[in-house]
């Protein structure tokens, strides 16, 4: 021990670090009401939004659409209703992905006293089998709104399965690590609100300004393309394009099971995007993924409408690399309506 402490400054460093760890292990569990050892993954609040239950009962739509901003800008619910002769309601949540869709299906649609006949899930490429996509950071707040306190599949698929053994151990036994998001948010809040307050801009004013600035408006065109490409790149990692490995860790089987259990015909609609070039979309890995997805859904008797490489959706119909423009929305809605006619009874 004396030898160790004599090595400048490693011995002192380890001693002081141990003191910090012991102190935080006593203080933080009390501060944040944590029990150890704990189950890995974030704590979910008990509150669950059930707003779609009321809407479904009130409107009784025959078709429900579900997806993210590509659905919001890509499919016109009114036009689809007009084209198919069925009533349509759209649950389009920008920034959502398969985890949120699963939670809405499980905690809203399946629990409603009125069940739609058809559920169209609009997706792109590998998003259906990417359970960790758009659940971390600021997305977590959105997903948590539709989750109950106890969501074992969600925690397992979107968090635990993505952790390495060190992270799992730290999540179980290490208070400083578990409390990091809270501590980090406190530090960030102090930094964020301090200087604007000196100029008379309070918390609300700062939050409004930051929300406005980070909304994406006034973004330099290339920066927007880069930001979208960076955010989407997770979907095109080699491991994400391995369907057979990903599917069992995804929400796809459970979404199909819940839909079948409640006599809802689930239909998956693959929309075209231009975020990655033909190098990725035509790669053997991506083509294999799509073949496997098609076979999987066919085995489950679930229709797949694949517009992912449809030549009718030309470049001029896109607003940006991921969203269709108004004209594109009309074209795409009509394409979906035409294909749906063979499925709708």
């Amino acid at each position: 021990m004396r030898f160790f402490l004599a090595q400048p400054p490693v011995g002192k460093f380890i001693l002081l670090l141990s003191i910090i760890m012991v102190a935080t292990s006593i203080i933080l569990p009390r501060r944040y009401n944590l029990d150890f050892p704990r189950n890995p993954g974030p704590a979910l609040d008990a509150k669950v939004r059930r707003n779609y239950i009321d809407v479904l009962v009130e409107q009784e739509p025959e078709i429900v659409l579900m997806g993210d901003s590509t659905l919001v800008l890509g499919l016109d619910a009114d036009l689809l209703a007009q084209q198919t002769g069925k009533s349509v309601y759209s649950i389009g949540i920008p920034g959502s992905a398969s985890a949120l869709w699963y939670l809405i299906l499980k905690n809203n649609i399946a629990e409603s006293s009125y069940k739609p006949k058809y559920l169209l899930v609009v997706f792109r490429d590998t998003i259906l089998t990417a359970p960790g996509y758009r659940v971390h950071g600021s997305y977590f707040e959105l997903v948590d709104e539709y989750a109950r306190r106890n969501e074992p599949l969600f925690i397992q698929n979107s968090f635990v399965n993505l952790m390495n053994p060190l992270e799992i151990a730290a999540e179980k036994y290490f208070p400083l690590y578990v409390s990091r998001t809270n501590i980090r948010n406190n530090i960030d809040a102090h930094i964020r609100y301090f200087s604007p307050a000196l100029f008379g801009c309070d918390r609300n004013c700062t939050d409004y300004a930051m929300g406005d600035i980070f909304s994406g408006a006034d973004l330099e065109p290339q920066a927007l393309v880069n930001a979208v490409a960076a955010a989407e790149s997770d979907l095109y990692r080699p491991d994400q394009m391995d369907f057979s490995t990903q599917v069992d860790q995804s929400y796809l089987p459970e979404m199909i099971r819940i839909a079948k259990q409640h006599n809802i015909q689930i239909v998956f609609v693959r929309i075209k995007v231009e975020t990655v070039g033909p190098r990725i979309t035509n790669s053997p890995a991506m083509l294999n993924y799509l073949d496997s997805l098609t076979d999987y859904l066919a085995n489950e008797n679930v229709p797949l409408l694949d517009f992912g490489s449809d030549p009718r959706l030309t470049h001029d119909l896109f607003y940006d690399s991921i969203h269709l423009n108004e004209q594109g929305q009309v074209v795409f809605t009509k394409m979906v309506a035409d294909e749906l006619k063979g499925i709708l009874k």
Partner: protein
Amino acid sequence: MAFTSYVFLLFYLTVFVLYWVVRERRWQNVILLAASYIFYGWLQPWLVVLLGVSTLADFFLARGMNAYPNRKLLFIWISLFVNLGVLAFFKYFGFFREGAIAALQSAGIQADLFLLSILLPAGLSFFTLKKLGYMIDVYRGTLKHSHSLIDFALYVSFFPQIIAGPIERPQKLLPQLEAPRIWQMDYFYRAWPLLVMGLFKKIVIANSIKVIVDRVFGLNDPTGFLLISGALGFTLQILADFSAYTDLARGVALLLGFETSENFNRPYTSLTPTDFWNRWHITLSTWLRDYVFFPVRRALLQSRFRFNESIAMSIPPIVTMFISGLWHGAGWTYVIWGLYYGVLIAAYQLIGIRGEWKPSSKIKIFFAWFIMFMFIVFGWAIFRAPSINWVGNALFHSPFVRAQNDLVLGLIALTMALVYSLPLIIKMLLDQYSKESWLQGAYYAIAVSLILIYINSSSSDFIYVQF
């Protein structure tokens, strides 16, 4: 495979154990070589072929220079042509890609997938300079060529350095590769502060400030105030990010028994541009000094044409820094950034201020530092900007502050830059004025605690990996 990833931790622990268990130098080098190629080819296995073929070419060309001294010139030209050709092809292809595709399409030819998919192999700029330095030194006769293909291949591909340097000179690394290595606790005592500081600077400082910097430099039409605050943020980010990589690379190498070069020596305390480049990315600066600056100056001095002294003094730094800009990337911002420093160095020299210049009074030192720091910040604004027009627009056309939102974003960026620079300033002061190990120990203990708070499994890549 990022240094901050779990995969790298497993990879490194495996290599570390195997390496020190073997104990025999030749086998240690074989293990390191295999590890380096696995590390380099982790995401794109074909990169290993590029690295291997170009290494073989230079190894045999260097041997050729020794075996056929009268053909030395031919061999060095082949090496220069191959190395610079490969670098130019991958690095500057993007510069001409759009034009090439448009030209092909206008001629009725569909651009094929290969043409669309050429990407810069990570680390190419770094290991190309390592190989070129070796080849030029062998050509000049200041270095004996390596007799061992394994040692030479390991010098080129040494995994702690291959992605983003330091650009180690053969005179420093090759003798270490050729010498026996036995584990000493001293390696650990010297490596762990580097590893802690590397992780701290990357995870806590660089990744935190990156969010706001990216937002400012992503704006379509920023104001002058936002440009200044964003540039200050980036000034901190790039130092924290790049010096973190170097610290980690040096720490990882030290644990394997290798002493590698420092890349930074408090660069933002510089008083002159020459001083800055003696302290910033030192291994690149010294490489450019030895293989570009000195030869250009020598050529000018020995030229038949008698150049005006001002021109003779100005051309070498401008050419050198222009090449430095080009080395960083195929974009006008990099080229202008390089030229900006070239002109700055030349201008300082013309008014009699050289690298070692130091004013007599503290007030003058402060002003000299402040002016140079402003030049550095402006340089980073050019470097990080999406285009030169973007900088010009922010400086000359946009108002200084347009709306309250801009003011809020700018203030937050400034506060973040200030808060996150404090740990670096404190460390600098501690290193200078207090070697007292309790204070140093406390600093590292707090740094590790903050790493645990800020750690994120999806941390971003190091900035210099893209070069």
